[in-house]
């Protein structure tokens, strides 16, 4: 796979050293190319790329509010269409908070209306920008500032909301999960999403050094561990047809993933076992 060298997200942005979100955006934009308009919800990505009066974006980019990335993208798509510009990619980048919680109704509406947009959720599993508060996408057992581990709590007590499947239930033509640690898989999916007529949704898993608690050099390694343990599964749903796009040769114990992060450090063996059992169950259903 030939990967373009040209960058559409400039350096000098204020992402933490080892930021996974910017890796996701860099790789996605390489596939979409210069003829693209990007939209962001409020979140890490918006804050780190738009320190007024500077911008890290090399393409037109717009931010309005936390809850409406999908609505803004819908409007941009419709405006371009009315000008006869049908060949422009409109991509929305929103975090897991801006997707699973705050931006959910706008996203659901955009999917329902069938806009020709690409919506990429960069999922770091909590509100990292404001100091690691839990979101609907925070996994079971993770300690965040609003699901803190302590005497009366073992961390997040709800399972991760299954956003990609909720999007698939809208009947949109393209839904995929991805990981920044499997860049070719991710970029192929972005390319497909760009070629799709109608709404495409990609949910890309990206470790966060600050919120998850690990050395910044391990961002890619952590993402890989999530996939190799079965804690995060790579698949796509094209016109309703489900396909797993990567199967680890041998699934690693989920403890290897959990133990590498501070947010799971407090978990008792029985909680870790619960997580392993849950992963086993999901993987058995998908024959991974």
């Amino acid at each position: 796979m030939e990967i373009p060298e040209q960058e559409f997200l400039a350096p000098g942005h204020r992402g933490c050293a080892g930021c996974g979100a910017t890796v996701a955006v860099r790789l996605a934009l390489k596939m979409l190319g210069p003829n693209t308009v990007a939209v962001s919800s409020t979140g890490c990505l918006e804050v780190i790329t738009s320190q007024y009066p500077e911008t890290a974006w090399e393409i037109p980019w717009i931010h309005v509010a936390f809850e409406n990335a999908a609505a803004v993208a819908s409007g941009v798509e419709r405006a371009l269409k009315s000008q006869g510009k049908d060949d422009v990619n409109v991509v929305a980048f929103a975090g897991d908070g801006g997707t699973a919680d705050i931006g959910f109704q706008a996203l659901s509406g955009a999917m329902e209306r069938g806009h020709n947009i690409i919506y990429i959720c960069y999922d770091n599993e909590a509100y990292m920008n404001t100091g690691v508060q839990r979101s609907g996408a925070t996994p079971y057992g993770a300690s965040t500032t609003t699901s803190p581990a302590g005497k009366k709590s073992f961390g997040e007590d709800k399972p991760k909301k299954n956003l990609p499947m909720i999007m698939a239930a809208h009947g949109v033509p393209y839904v995929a999960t991805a990981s920044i640690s499997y860049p070719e898989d991710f970029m192929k999916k972005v390319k497909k999403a760009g070629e799709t007529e109608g709404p495409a949704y990609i949910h890309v898993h990206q470790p966060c050094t600050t919120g998850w608690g690990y050395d910044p050099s391990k961002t890619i390694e952590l993402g890989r561990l999530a996939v190799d343990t079965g804690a995060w599964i790579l698949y796509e749903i094209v016109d309703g047809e489900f396909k797993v796009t990567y199967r680890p040769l041998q699934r690693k114990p989920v403890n290897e993933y959990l133990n590498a992060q501070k947010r799971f450090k407090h978990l008792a063996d029985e909680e870790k076992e619960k997580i392993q059992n849950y992963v086993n169950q999901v993987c058995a259903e998908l024959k991974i």
Partner: protein
Amino acid sequence: MTVKIGTVKEPGSSKMNKTGSWRTFRPVLDEEKCIDCENCFLFCPEGCINKENEIDYDYCKGCGICAEECPVKAIKMERD
């Protein structure tokens, strides 16, 4: 085109902000060992390593992902 308040018209102007000053450890490439796998280019959060494996130290924050992901250990992190 008129640019109103709240818009930034210079694309990629974050380049004015040299994040290399954040760095404590600097990645140093041993070109003899390099096999051009492009992992460092792909995984750099700054996008400051090109396909010729040149590292732009003006922006490198020293996260160490390139060294960690190098399959032949051609990149070493050295104290800046």
